[in-house]
């Protein structure tokens, strides 16, 4: 295990000597131990960094390195996926602190044993690149403070409880504050509090991340001009929680199976304006898209599938709401206090439209009945009646003030599905068929034996 170093710089030679020396010191000790110990050699990383010069590129040999470290030079550190940085000093809040612009950290495994506010990586510099890292943290993952134009890509961040420690509070996977223009791409984050947390960070790009088992997959506020696109979130409490923003693009995301919590939803928009929410897929959530106090947004071509409540508007006005597809939701839409929305050309699968002119658009309007939502706003206890047959009956009778209901005057008769809505077939089909046959057989035999034959 000899570290290889790019020898394009005179400083690298010194690093080589230093590392060889440290290896030499440790070798006899490890030689005597039995190989059962998986990490016999532990190298302190900070001296290697201290010995390097600005602009150096260090490739770490496979092995375990000890943190915490402070990168205060423009270095490129590459672990090639086989080097692990361990931080188990209880006093060290941060495993890797980066305070030099243009620093790059690649292919390193990082384990942060400290929980609470402790982070695996903290960046306080601009244009920093964090790539191909695999982070296990008991607290936060990657934290950016006043750090602009950074790139965070292809990292895996997950929460863990160190051996023998009580499980503490989860931190956020990627946490930005006052950091503009960051590109967060293709990361996989799971089991933490919020997957990607953005605050006061404008022009951030959040693209193609995969987010599972979190509180909020993407939680953002005051991030004007940012885009959240092509992310996948499953089994979180909420997929995207977007609050207090303008000019944000939320597109191509897929948020599924977020239904277990009483506050679960696919996409929540609160105080969002002049933003576009397009081409998203929300499937199997408690509420697909929840829009509160938001105005002048564009919601187009979203596919809302199999949610308990497809879309819910509360005090949301002046939005463009077009060509969205609603399929197999228990209740398609709720709307209260939401006026002046331009709603047209959506597809509502439970709506029986009538197309006389043959242009594929129903000549009967689709109106959202606000009765149930008004009822449960008065007293939440009535939520027990959700989709009870009697409740449907009562809602249908209620037509008070129908002119003021949120209405789609031109609902589509059919939806051309271009997204994969099929293929989620669950197993057990054979079992259902087998049990069906068995039940049918037993029933028919009983009926014949008891009823038909006069024994």
């Amino acid at each position: 295990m000899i570290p290889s170093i790019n020898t394009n710089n005179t400083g690298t030679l010194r690093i080589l000597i230093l590392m060889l020396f440290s290896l030499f010191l440790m070798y006899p000790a490890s030689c005597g131990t039995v190989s059962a110990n998986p990490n016999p050699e532990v190298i302190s990383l900070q001296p290697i960094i201290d010995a390097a010069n600005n602009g150096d590129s260090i490739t770490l040999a496979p092995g375990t390195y000890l943190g915490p470290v402070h990168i205060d030079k423009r270095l490129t550190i590459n672990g090639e996926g086989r080097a692990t940085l361990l931080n188990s000093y209880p006093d060290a809040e941060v495993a890797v602190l980066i305070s030099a612009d243009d620093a790059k950290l690649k292919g390193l495994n990082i384990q942060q044993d400290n929980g609470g506010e402790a982070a695996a990586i903290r960046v306080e510099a601009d244009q920093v690149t964090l790539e191909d890292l695999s982070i296990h943290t008991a607290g936060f993952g990657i934290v950016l403070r006043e750090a602009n134009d950074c790139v965070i890509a292809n990292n895996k961040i997950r929460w863990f409880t160190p051996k023998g420690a009580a499980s503490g509070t989860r931190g956020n996977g990627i946490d930005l504050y006052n950091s503009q223009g960051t590109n967060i791409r293709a990361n996989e984050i799971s089991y933490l509090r919020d997957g990607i947390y953005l605050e006061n960070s404008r022009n951030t790009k959040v693209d193609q991340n995969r987010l599972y088992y979190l509180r909020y997959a993407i939680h953002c506020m005051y991030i004007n001009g940012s885009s959240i696109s092509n992310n996948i979130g499953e089994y979180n409490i909420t997929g995207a929680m977007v609050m207090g923003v303008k000019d944000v693009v939320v597109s191509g995301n897929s948020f599924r199976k977020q239904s277990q919590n009483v506050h679960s939803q696919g996409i929540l928009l609160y105080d969002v304006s002049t933003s576009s929410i397009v081409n998203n897929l929300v499937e199997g959530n408690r509420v697909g898209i929840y829009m509160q106090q938001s105005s002048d947004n564009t919601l187009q071509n979203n596919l809302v599938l199999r949610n308990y409540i497809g879309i819910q508007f509360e005090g949301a006005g002046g939005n463009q709401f077009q060509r969205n597809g609603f399929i197999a939701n228990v209740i398609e839409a709720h709307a209260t206090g939401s006026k002046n929305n331009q709603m047209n050309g959506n597809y509502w699968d439970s709506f029986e439209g009538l197309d006389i002119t043959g242009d594929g658009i129903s000549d009967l309007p689709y109106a959202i009945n606000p009765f149930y939502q008004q009822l449960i706003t008065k007293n939440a206890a009535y939520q027990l009646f959700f989709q009870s047959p009697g409740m449907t009956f009562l809602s249908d009778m209620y037509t008070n003030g129908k002119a003021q209901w949120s209405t789609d005057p031109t609902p589509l008769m059919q939806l051309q599905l271009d997204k994969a809505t099929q293929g989620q077939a669950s197993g057990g089909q054979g079992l259902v068929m087998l049990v069906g046959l068995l039940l049918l057989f037993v029933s028919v035999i009983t009926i014949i034996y008891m009823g038909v034959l006069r024994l």
Partner: protein
Amino acid sequence: MADMLQVAHREIKMGFRNPWAYSFLALLCTFSLGLLLINSQNVVQGYSAVTGSMLSLILYLLPLMTLFLGSFSLTSEKEEGSWQLLSTYPIGTMSFILGKYTGLAVVLLIIVATGYGLMGMISGLIGMAFDSATYFLLLAFSAGLVLLFLTVALFIGSLSRNRWQALTVSVSVWFFTIIGWPTFLIAILGLMPYLWIKPLLVALTILNPAELVRLFVVIKLGGGSVLGPEYYQWVEWIGRSTGSLLFMLVCLAWILISILAVYRIWERGRSRG
């Protein structure tokens, strides 16, 4: 015990020679297959519009069928005089009631099983994605509905003098428990102090077999979160395996108490001739 089995056996035979049973069988099969074919493009899994509409269909049809078949069976005993005849034999009233209940339950469950059997088979044949856990839950839902409403049917049959009376009462009970339930409750509870509403609502829900079973299945299908934070602890509780046990105990208590009440009515009628 032997008496009870005799009564039950006779009841099953009578049940399957009753054209009413077959007409309900046909109705159930037709509607469930219709629903299946309409939704054949969708995956039947968890709580969605597909399972929601299936629940509604079952809620409309099964209680009505149970109330009719159950109450008619008891009134016919009175109308045709077979109860007067049986009263002269050394047969206990409890054996009679339990036998009636068991026999009718078997008849109704066989009807339900036929419907589900057909549904399972057809869904397999047309290659539809039907999640097995959802299928079993719907089956259990239907069975629970039948067993609970059957006790209500016995009540109606005991208190009615003839079929026409039983028919009228059955339809009104059906309308009250299935269709009119939220309307009545919202109207009445609106007069109560705000803080009484939730506890009263919960208590009344336990008294309505249709709502009780429906909510249990919605929660078991994973849709408990739609009930909101008000019922968070309930939902979590019922979602666990002990929740199923509790539900079964509640159903059992329901059935036992009702059968005891029916027994008292018949015993009184018997002693007074």
